[in-house]
């Protein structure tokens, strides 16, 4: 098995085992979305209108907050040094970690989206579309968050600093994500354009994220 | 026993309960088997618990 798959396998095994952070993102997402109506009130048709927005904000926060430990644990136990000395370029190693993180954090999040949609009174048919937009958007969130995680690895105030650093970068993803979701549910507007832009953002971040994160790691390690 | 127009929801509820209960039972049984396997494996390698040696008690 080549180093790329070995690293993905290791990270997923670590995430799933006791002490790992596999479902933490999904739990946070469930809690945030389940608690929003306590602020907004139980009015079902209001909830239905802003359902996609709540789901997207929850997904955004959940995938970012779960990222801050991505490099920190490796940095603390010395693995990060060795990851930089592999035969594989650091960019690929960083991408492998992001893919493992996406599989263990963002995927469960997308799987439970339909259940949460029910709580926000979003019809079942629309749930498929919202999940689709999340499926297209979360890679962008993870790979952009990767840059924040790499920057935050050597700084003290890891977690929140990561969110503050990275949230502005994820604004386009949020805009087109919610736009696509709303277009699918309420929308006079067509679903196509915002969705394709969302996919483009994700593909771009697949390249930008690892390159920027690897550079940040090389600079950061003193 | 006629379940009336909403039969689907009644049956679905019972199916949910069956699924959740079997999931709990399955997880507990699998966990039990896994712990037994590891314990047998450890005992095979001659690892003995303090209590077996000193007749004390080690949870």
């Amino acid at each position, binding site marked *: 098995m080549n180093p790329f798959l070995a690293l993905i396998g290791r990270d997923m095994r670590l995430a799933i085992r*006791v*002490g*790992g*952070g596999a*479902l*933490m993102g999904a*739990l946070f997402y*469930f*809690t945030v979305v*389940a*608690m929003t*109506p*306590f602020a907004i*009130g*139980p*009015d*079902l048709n209001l909830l239905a209108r802003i359902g996609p927005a709540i789901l997207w904000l929850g997904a955004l926060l959940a995938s970012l907050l779960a990222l801050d430990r991505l490099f920190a644990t490796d940095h603390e136990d010395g693995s990060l040094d060795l990851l930089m000395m592999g035969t594989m370029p650091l960019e690929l190693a960083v991408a492998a970690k992001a893919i493992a993180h996406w599989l263990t954090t963002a995927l469960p999040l997308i799987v439970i989206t339909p259940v949460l949609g*029910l*709580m926000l*009174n979003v019809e079942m048919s629309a749930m498929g579309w919202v999940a689709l937009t999340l499926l297209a958007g979360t890679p962008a969130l993870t790979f952009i968050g990767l840059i924040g995680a790499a920057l935050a690895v050597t700084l003290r105030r890891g977690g929140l600093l990561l969110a503050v650093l990275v949230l502005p970068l994820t604004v386009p993803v949020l805009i087109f994500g919610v736009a696509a979701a709303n277009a699918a549910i309420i929308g006079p507007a067509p679903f196509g354009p915002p969705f394709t832009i969302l996919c483009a953002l994700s593909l771009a971040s697949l390249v930008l994220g690892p390159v920027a994160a690897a550079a940040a790691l090389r600079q950061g390690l003193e | *026993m*006629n*379940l*009336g*127009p*909403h*039969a689907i*929801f*009644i049956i*679905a*509820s*019972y199916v*949910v*309960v069956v699924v*959740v*209960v079997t*999931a*709990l*039972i399955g*997880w*507990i*049984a699998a*966990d*039990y088997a896994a*712990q*037994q396997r*590891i*314990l047998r494996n*450890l005992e095979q*390698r001659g*690892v*003995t*618990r*303090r*209590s077996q040696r000193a007749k004390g*008690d*080690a*949870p």
Partner: protein
Amino acid sequence: MAVIDLANPTRFLTLVNRVLPWLIGATALVFAYGLYRVAGAPDDYQQGATVKIMYLHVPGAWLGMMGWGVMTVAALGTLVWRHPLADVAGKAAAPIGAGFTFICLATGMLWGRPMWGTYWVWDARLTSVLVLFLLYLGMLALYWTAEDPNRSARAAAILALVGAVNIPIIKFSVDWWNTLHQPASVVRMGGAAIDASILVPLLIMALAFTLLFFTLHFAAMRNEILRRRVRSMRMMQAREVPV
């Protein structure tokens, strides 16, 4: 048999191995009889046959609450009486309580669809059960991320106590929140006085659920004791190597 001599895990294990088959038998019997009575129970004049969902929904809520009760007693056992098996009991009860709470939520949604036209209505009681479920998820996350059982025991016990104190507060605030925004017509689940022909099957099902809970709980405790035994033997194994 005083609780004290249950303190010895080995003796507790032999007790569980002896009692468990009987418990499983009793659970199956009561469930069979309960389902038989439920099948025979009359339909509700308003909801028709969908009232049969109540026989799962209401016991689910009771068992969800009882699960947290068991964890609270276990928490006192850990913090106050220092009972060695207390944390084992608490950790074993968490997933089972969460399971029953999930049953309550799921059947509540499936009951809501025919009655109110949507799967989820922010009804006061259903919402309180939802918050209880969130508490359970927090507890499971706590047990899931802590590797060392002695460290997580104290933290979980404190969370259980804090949770127990907060459940009535949450119940009150959700009720208040619900009446604040209350759209006029929400059918109360289950009328004030339940007729005996519906009440008896409900109590039998509740008993069946309780027996199921304790069967699963004892089995889960047995697993937890074995897991800690594996842990101490692995520590032996690491040390016995001639370093």
